[in-house]
Structures are given as structure tokens and as C-alpha cells.
């Protein structure tokens, strides 16, 4: 099957029902996307599919054919970290770091659809588990990234 991942076409020979997570991790060696639960409960496997934050551990890869798949590896453009990634560093968010790919993918999707989210919006959209409990810093980092993105838009405008 043909998948479009981070702008590149990738061909894989897998069962239709193999979850996208395992195509990424084991067939394409793109290990930034993580396995956490296998039942779409924790969000460690979150990527964007056509811009929507999607848990891939239960999503058949065949369901992503013809769509734009964006993984953590595709977030930094031309070696430049995104505003969210920079904000994650600014607020020193990650601890063990295992869930953070999924958190960042969820946060990117949130800010793409809602450039200035309230705390309530963040509560609703950011549902991934972080066992290290970095939620408070994730929240602060999202607000900072929203501000930076707005400033960037203003500058460009």
C-alpha cells in the first residue's frame, strides 16, 4: 500500500488491518511515534492525519491511504523546530520523554485548529497520558507557543 508520510510517498507491503503505528515503527523504522497501550487509551501513538490528531495503534494503515500523514519526524521543517517544539524546550516539558511525541502532535493539531486556546480548550483537546505528570508544563508551553505563532503571523502579515 502507498502511504504519504511527511510529504514523501512510502510503499509498504503489509496486511490491510496492520495498525499504522506498527507500519511506522517496524516497517519504516520511524520510531518517534510510540507504543503505549494498543487500545487508543494513552495517545503515545498520536500522529496527524489530514491535520487531525489521530491515535494510530488501532487505526488500520489502509485507512490512511490517500491521506496526509504527519509524524513527529515531520514537525521540524528544514531543521527548524516548530514553535511548539521550542516552547517545549523553553518550559522544559519532557521528563522521561516517552509520551512527548504524541503530546506534541496533539498540541500541533490543537493550535492549527484553534490558535489561541483557553485552559478549557486545552483540557478538552489534550487527553494523552503523561506518566511523569508534565501536564502543567505542557499547558504553559501551549500558551507560549500560541503567543509565538501569533507573533510570527503578525510579522509575516
Amino acid at each position, binding site marked *: 500500500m502507498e502511504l504519504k508520510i511527511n510529504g514523501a510517498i512510502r510503499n509498504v507491503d*503489509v*496486511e490491510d488491518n*496492520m*495498525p499504522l*503505528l*506498527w507500519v511506522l*515503527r*517496524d*516497517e519504516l*523504522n520511524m*520510531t*518517534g*511515534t*510510540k*507504543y*503505549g*497501550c*494498543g*487500545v487508543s*487509551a*494513552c495517545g*503515545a501513538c498520536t500522529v496527524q492525519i489530514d491535520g487531525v490528531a489521530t491515535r494510530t495503534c488501532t487505526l488500520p494503515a489502509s485507512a490512511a491511504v490517500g491521506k496526509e500523514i504527519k*509524524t*513527529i*519526524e515531520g*514537525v*521540524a521543517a528544514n531543521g527548524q*523546530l516548530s514553535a511548539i*517544539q521550542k516552547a*517545549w*524546550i523553553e518550559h*522544559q*516539558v*519532557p*521528563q*522521561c*520523554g*516517552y*509520551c*512527548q*511525541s504524541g503530546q*506534541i502532535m496533539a498540541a500541533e493539531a490543537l493550535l492549527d485548529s484553534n490558535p489561541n486556546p483557553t485552559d478549557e480548550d*486545552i*483540557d*478538552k483537546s*489534550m*487527553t*494523552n*497520558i*503523561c*506518566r*511523569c*505528570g*508534565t*501536564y*502543567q*508544563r*505542557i*499547558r504553559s508551553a501551549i500558551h507560549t507557543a500560541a503567543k509565538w505563532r501569533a507573533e510570527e503571523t503578525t510579522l509575516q502579515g
Partner: protein
Amino acid sequence: MGKWTRRAFIATGGLAGAGLIVGVAGIMHVNKAIKKYSGVGMGDGASLNAWVRIAPDNTITMAVPRAEMGQGVYTALPMLIAEELEVDMNQIEIVHPQPESPYANTFFLDPNPRKAYASYSLMAKVAAFLPVVGTGGSTSVKDLYDHLREMGATARAALIAAAAEKWGVTAADCYAESAHVINKKTKEKLTYGSLAEAASKVELDFNPPLKEQKDFKLLGKRIQRLDIPEKVTGAADFSIDVRPEGMLVAAIRHATYIGGTVNGITNIEEVEQMKGVKKVVMLEDGLGAAVVADNTWRAKNAAMALDFDEAGNTLENVSSADISKMLGEIVADESKMIATSEAYGDANAALNGEAKVIEANYEVPYLSHCTMEPLNCTMVINGDKCEVWVGHQGGSMVRDAINTVTEIPKENIKVNITYLGGGFGRRAELDFVKKAAMVAKQMPGTPIQLVFTREEDMKNGTYRPAVASNFKGTIGADGMIDAWENKMALQSVSSSFMLRTMPAMAEGPEKDPQTSEGAIELPYGRNNVSVQFGQLDLPALQVGNWRSVGASQNGFFSESFMDEMAHAAGQDPYEFRKKHIQKSDLPDAPRFLAVLNKVADMASWSTPLPEGKYRGIAILKSFGSIVGQVAEITKTDEKEISIDKVYCVIDCGRIVNPDTIEAQMQSGIIYGLTAALYNEITLDNGQVVQQNFPQYEMVRMNTSPTVAVHIMEVDEYPGGVGEPGTPPAAPALTNAIFAATGERVRSLPLNKLGYTFV
């Protein structure tokens, strides 16, 4: 200076060829092949000791032989070296070295000279025989705070000596800054890189003095963590991410029942026909099987398809209600107590006097660690050689375990410690390493990544034990506690852990100091105290070190009963604690008092909260640090609670990286609250009921409180920070719930008592 020399000797003992005197060229035991997994390479250059290597291009490579599991050790330890070595944080590269003796955790060996927490006395016995290179017990900074500064200082002195010789001046004419030696008179500069070779041959005849705290440039400052940049791009490799050439995945499936065994598999041929499957391997320990395949999902599905012929269920008739009953029977029976952990005055007499006895029974359940990265281990065995990639808290334990299973000589086992996707004590265990070895040795030459699914991980834990505590107390005529008695029942964590990992050193449960952590040496002056414990014998159900260990339950018990006593005495919980701390003769009682007062002040304790809001307070010392917390909650409905804010004050002595300390407090609190709100592992006739997050919920963004942290500035030897944030979280919350509802919470989790959280 004597101490220094002794430590240097311990540090290098048993390492052939290494320098025996600090400052003499040592051998940098770094495995170059791990570059990929530690993010940096060694490069060229010269070693100034086992911890510092400097390349001609002025790259400063530091060894960090402790597991980075989120607690910031890959930054804190380099900071200690860099402070004295006079290098900038952005000049540092890190390697995780092989688990050689210079890197043994000597805190396991000899914690007492540090006047620090003696919880690892069992480990100390082990360390006396084996150099344990391990991470746990919040020991990394406690162990290395002096030693690494000494390593930095001696390396700097050697570099200065080399420069002085080159310039024909004295060392006093030079100083060091940002990895350069500078000539005071001529302002000439030489890079460390240009001096390292010569410096590595310098023999120092003195111990350079360490900096005074006022001169610190790094320690005590908020320093950005070195591991974070690669953790925001997906580039950081956990052991589940390693992909050695030709690697196959082995999905493990254990017997259905805890401690159960598998006699055979009735459909091996069928399963071996499944797509991608290479081999079905029966584990030699009889506890299960693994399916080796070319993809994790295929391996997992095939493992699920195995038909086990299972034998034995040693816990056949044991369910959680039975365990609860057994624990209750132990705490109710004085004769079942196997050891006394603290006793003074005469609690028995005081409890049989005139005063009204306040009695309460507490109980908490088994808990899973639930590291975010499910357990896994990658290994390749080639004849008498082995290489392993694993996120593990004990590099030397990994090597020893592989040696035990495979008989491959230890020196032929290359151990690559990757980032850990959470440790919390679960990654101090060896089950996943040994099982990887059992599979890998049946697939010689092929790298095998053994993976537990989340379900296998949750069902085959080394759980925090279920624990019961029976408290009795009396209040004297002065309104102060007169008698305090606590009888505990549980399975000994140290005994269970040591039997699994280092059986020759295992001791009986009566010798387990971890059982009493958080139950004894409370900072409260009381006349008559008795703390005892009994053992629940249930060896098939393994218990282990769960973030903050004994203090995880005892903090909840002790600080809840303290609240009950305050209530019985008709006094404010903060004022009541304060008076008892003032009465305490513990040497660090003044530090407790300062923490308590500070957290009450932060939370504006004396100012009444608006209607519908309530607060609770708790304080505990664990792992050498004192932590006080106030939880502020809103009662949004009958049994519906919002945890709005947690105020947290820590006294961990000298501060290394305040940002990390703050992060660890936030983390420890969420960890403690998650267990308090949602978590229990229960047994149904020998089978673990909970399988995955839907049955073992976590605090998430919407239920996470804001945590405000204050770090006391105290010029004392450092305590730990990875664990001490956890124990006060539950009692601060449940004491607030008591204030809100009048219901005294004596068992967890709260959702089982009908509470919901918003």
C-alpha cells in the same frame, strides 16, 4: 581528606589498569558503540579520570552511569563536574558508560556517613560484594555530590598544571574558565583540548579545594536539561526504539495466573505458519512463551493465538478480598508482629489508661508502576558474546542477569543503557532482561527485541504491596498526643526484590527497613510510640520498589492518622502538627518546622477559603528530603471533587538544579494523586483483573492540579528529589476531602469510594 582518598579507592577498586589516585590518568570506560543510543560520541582525546574525557577540539565528554528516566540525571551529574571543571553546559557531551566499578553507587554501600537515609542497608550488603552500578532510591546526587565535584576539581587542577608548565609559570598564575586555562599576567589562553594529553599525565600531590557555595556558577541555577532537545523531535531512542540490523521482535505471553506455569503449547505449528512468524520459544523458566516475528504487531497477535496447556495456579483461591482479610487479621493480632521498628515510652500502658483511644484501620491496594514505555529489552547473542540495549536502572545487574541465564562471561557482555520511558522501580527488575536472554540464546546471531504488551506489563508486575495499618492513639490532658501505636501488615518489598535479583543476599522480611519508611522518625514529639509490622506470606505474588516505596503507603497512613488526632483534639491540623514538631527532639525538627510554616504560608492557611473550597495538609521526610504539601480542592458536587492546586515545599538541602527539583515535585505529586484517585491491582482467583489503562486510569490534563513549588535554601548535604514528592500527595488530598465532606478516607483508591474528579 581521608574520606576522599577512601572513595577514590573504592571507585577504582577492581578495575585493572585504572589510575588509583585521583588526578592520575584513568581509563575512561566508555563503549563507543553506544554513541547512537546516548546521543553523543566519545571522540578522540584524553581521559582525566573515569568521568571526564577531553578531545583536541575541546569537546568535553562526561560519563553519566546513571539511568535517565525523566529525573534529569543526565544534566544534574554533569553540572556537578562542570562546576569545578569550569566548563559551560553547552560544551558537554554525555556518554552512558559500561557498568564498571568506578561507577558503583556507593550510597548503596555506605549511606550512613552522609547522615542520609539508611533505607538501602540491604543493598549495602550487596554492594560490599559487588559494585552495583544502579539508579534508585533517589540516590544519584546524594551519592555523587562530593565525588563528582572532586573529579571536576582534580581534572581542572591537572589542566592548569599542564598549562603552567607550558608557560613556565606557577599554577597560581593561571585560572580556568569556559574550558580554557588563562594566564593571569599575559592573558594568554589555551583550550582544555590542547592541554588534555599533557594533563592526563600530571600527578597531583594535593586535593584542590572545592568551591564555596557563593562562588557556584551552575549549581543552584535553573539549567536547561541536556536530554530535552532530542525528546521534542522524536529522535531520543528508548530501548523499544533500537533497531540493530536484522532485528526480530519477540512478543511475550505469560501464564494466565500469577505464578502459573505453562506445560506446553498445543498449536505451535499453526502459529508458526502465521504471517511474519519465525519461531515460537518456550521460556525455560516455564512461566510462558514468546513468539518471534518480523513485526511487533504480528508477534503480538501470534502470541495471543498460542493455546497454552497451563499447569498450576498457586493463587487459585486467592482474590483481593482474601488478601484484605489476611492483612486485617495480621494487624489485629499482636502475636503476628515480626519486628518493632520504633518504640519509646510505653504505648501499651498509655492505651490502657483513662484516655479515650482513637483507633483507625487503613488499607491500600497493590499498584502497578505503569511505565509509559512498556517493558522491553533488545539483545543479540553471538557465541560467547552478547550485546544488550535496555532502559534499565541497574547496568551491572543487567550484565549479571545475562551472565546467569547464558553463562556468557561478564566481560563479553556489552550493556547499552538507553533512555528509560519511565522507571519508577519497575526497571530495577530483571524479569524482562532474563526473558530476552532466554529467547535470544535460542536465536543466535539475531538481535531480539523482547516486548511486553501493555496487558502483559500490567498483569505481570512487581507491584507496590497491598498494606494495612492499624492505628491507636490517645490525646493527653494537654491536648497533645500521648500514645501512638501503629501495626502494619504487608509483603516485604526488600525480601521479594532481593530474592528475585540477588538471592544470595536476601534477608528476611523482619530486616526490611523499607517497610517502615514514613511510619517511623515522624517529626512529632509524642510520649509513647510503638510501630511494628507483620508479614503477609504470599511469595507467588511479587512485590517491588514503587516510586517512594514504603513511604508511598506510610505517608498516607501516618499523615492521615495525624489529621485524625488533630480532629480528635479539636485542633487545626496545621497548628496541631506545628506544636508537635516544636515538641520533637529530632535533630532536623527545625527544618520540618520551616517547611511546614512555609507551605502553610504559601497556601494562606490562616485565611479562610471561599465557600465550596477546602484544604488539607501533610508533611513527610523520605529519601533525605522533607516535603510539605497543601492540597486545595473544590467540592463541585456531593462526591465530585476538583483538585485545584497543590502547594509544595521541599527542603532537599543543597540545590543542584532547581528546575529539575520543581519538575520532580510536580511529577511526584501527579504520580501520588493518580494512585490515590484511580489505581488498584486486584486479584480474582489468582488472575490480575486490570489489563490496560481503561481499568487503571491516570490523572490527565483535565484532572491535573496546578502545583506551586518552593525550594528551601538550606546549606546541608543534598537529599533526593525523585521520590519525596509522592508520599504527601495522597494525605494532603484526603485530609482536604475530610474537611470538605467529613468523610475520613482510610482506603484507596478514591474512585472505589464513589468519588469522581473533574
